[in-house]
């Protein structure tokens, strides 16, 4: 892992926290901090464009979005963002290689049909990819299964098992294995705690147990 360090990742004084725009999702603030100002960013599964708008206004990025839901697309376009309606499962292959500095996939990988194929597309389209997902190895998740014998529900996994769109949940260790088998380099790795503080991953074992969300900066291994 390289020494890429996100600026101002401890919350409190960053513009995102101050305005509350990204406040509900700790991974989004970290992702925003990882992005270099003035770069080209594709946000896949951008929702109503909250992250993208933040990046465009605060980091002067050239931003594009891809979103499945019509209401999200409409809201994002209406706020002046360049967003197209599309499906991460099928539409990423339409983008040329290295079209963006960053391809961002925040808390969407676990809902894709083929996470491996999507990951390969991300590092092809972006020079770097930023991926976040809820860590299924998080201790509260483990405990819910172990002690209560129930499918876990946490702030990162809020839906009932019968309502969730997550079909490919994984732990941080699982994810790192997948990167390895897809020949994807992990440039930097972080965990986000429930209080939305982010820390670089030093020990995978401990991150896999104590990190609620994982956030990874990835690139294609040449």
């Amino acid at each position, binding site marked *: 892992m390289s020494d890429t360090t996100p600026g101002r990742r401890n919350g409190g004084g960053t513009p995102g926290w101050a305005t509350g725009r990204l406040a509900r999702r700790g991974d989004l603030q970290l992702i925003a901090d990882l992005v270099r100002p003035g770069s*080209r960013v594709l946000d896949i599964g951008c929702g109503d464009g909250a992250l993208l708008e933040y990046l465009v206004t605060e980091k002067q990025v050239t931003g*594009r979005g891809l979103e499945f839901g*019509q209401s999200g*697309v*409409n809201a994002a*376009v*209406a*706020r*002046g*963002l*360049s*967003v*197209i*309606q*599309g499906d991460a499962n099928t*539409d990423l292959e*339409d*983008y*040329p290689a290295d*079209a*963006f500095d960053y391809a961002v996939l925040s808390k969407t990988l676990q809902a894709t049909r083929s996470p491996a194929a999507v990951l390969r597309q991300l590092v092809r389209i972006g020079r770097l990819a930023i991926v976040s997902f809820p860590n299924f190895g998080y201790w509260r998740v483990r405990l819910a299964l172990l002690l209560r014998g129930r499918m876990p529900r946490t702030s990162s996994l809020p839906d009932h098992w019968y309502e969730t769109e997550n079909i490919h949940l994984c732990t941080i260790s699982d994810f790192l294995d997948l990167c390895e088998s897809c020949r994807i380099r992990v440039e930097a790795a972080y965990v986000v705690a429930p209080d939305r503080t982010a820390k670089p991953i030093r020990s995978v074992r401990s991150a896999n147990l104590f990190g609620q969300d994982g956030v990874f900066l990835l690139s294609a291994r040449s």
Partner: protein
Amino acid sequence: MDKLVPLFIGPDGPRELPGAALRIGAEQPLRLRSGLPFGPATIAYQTYGTLNAARSNAVLVCHALTGDQYVAEDHPITGRPGWWEVLVGPGRPIDTERFFVICTNVLGGCMGSSGPREPDPRTGRPWGLEFPVVTISDMVLAQRLLVDHLGIDRLFCVIGGSMGGMQVLEWAAKYPERLVTAVPVATAAHHSAQNIAFHEIGRQAIMADPDWHGGRYLESGTIPRRGLSVARMTAHVTYLSEPALHRKFGRRLQDRETPAFSFDADFQVESYLRYQGSTFVDRFDANSYLYITRAMDYFDLAADYGGILAEAFRDSPVRFCLASFSSDWLFPTAECRRIVHALNAVAADVSFVEIESDKGHDAFLLDEPEFHATLHGFLNSSAERLGLPTGRLRPLDLSGRDPTKDRIS
């Protein structure tokens, strides 16, 4: 280039139309896509709002097959509301209080621009089928000459639906430095086999009418009414959707309790189509219908770029916003996505929305608040980037008007 008064050549002779017209290709004829020279030609247009001092707030609206330049005012011939007044007007997404709106009647049309009903200067007789076959790119060339004449270097926006959307794509591909934003709506980068097929049915209906007289009906003092109305009836069905037809008419009978067991217009839907067909004849020229449908059939933007649509938009500085409607089967969302894919492939600045609607192709002309809100957001943010004034979307006032009736696709 001289300024002229546009004329409507109706059955009772010529009649002056509101707006203006421009003589183009007088010194040097236009070079048409077919290779033929053509000129001088007339291009009729209407404007709304005021051009600012920097000439940076102009919006060119491109009309569909049977539309014309009267986009935001009552029509001078039919008296019906402007065909896109839901979109163009004070407080609407194309706000005439902030933008200078230009709309031309396309080349080949019949509302003052050069078309088959105009006299052929060589003979003094109506052109008829001697009029050269024009294409979407010829229509856009004529528009560009008008924009040159108005002293506008860069249009803030070029927008249009259906055939109007084809013109928008042509503008963005051929003259990318002349526009800031492009909004192609409910359109495609080429006319599909199905669309050509429907147009051919319409054309054959016109040409099968004995009153068509090989295109020389004006000299025979006739109008191919039956043929042109059948063409319009067929086309009209393609603008709707099964749910829209069902909602509007179902199997309800027209002015009767039980079927008459005859070939009268028993069903409301028949009566509606007959009405659509017959009123169309009064405002539209049969030969113009042949020419303009042909122009759409010939449209295939990728063909001009070695068969690769993306090449049409390489390094484009234009900001695109595309919209399609979920129940539109004439210009389905899939066609719109092809354009989006091409734009993505060259990393162009593109937004795209599919609007949920059951109103078919006609939805682009109707009150679709979600479409209007999205478009307003897109234009507002683009205006802001350019330092143009932004504005709020004011609700549509359709009091006393039935927005679902008699639109022009």
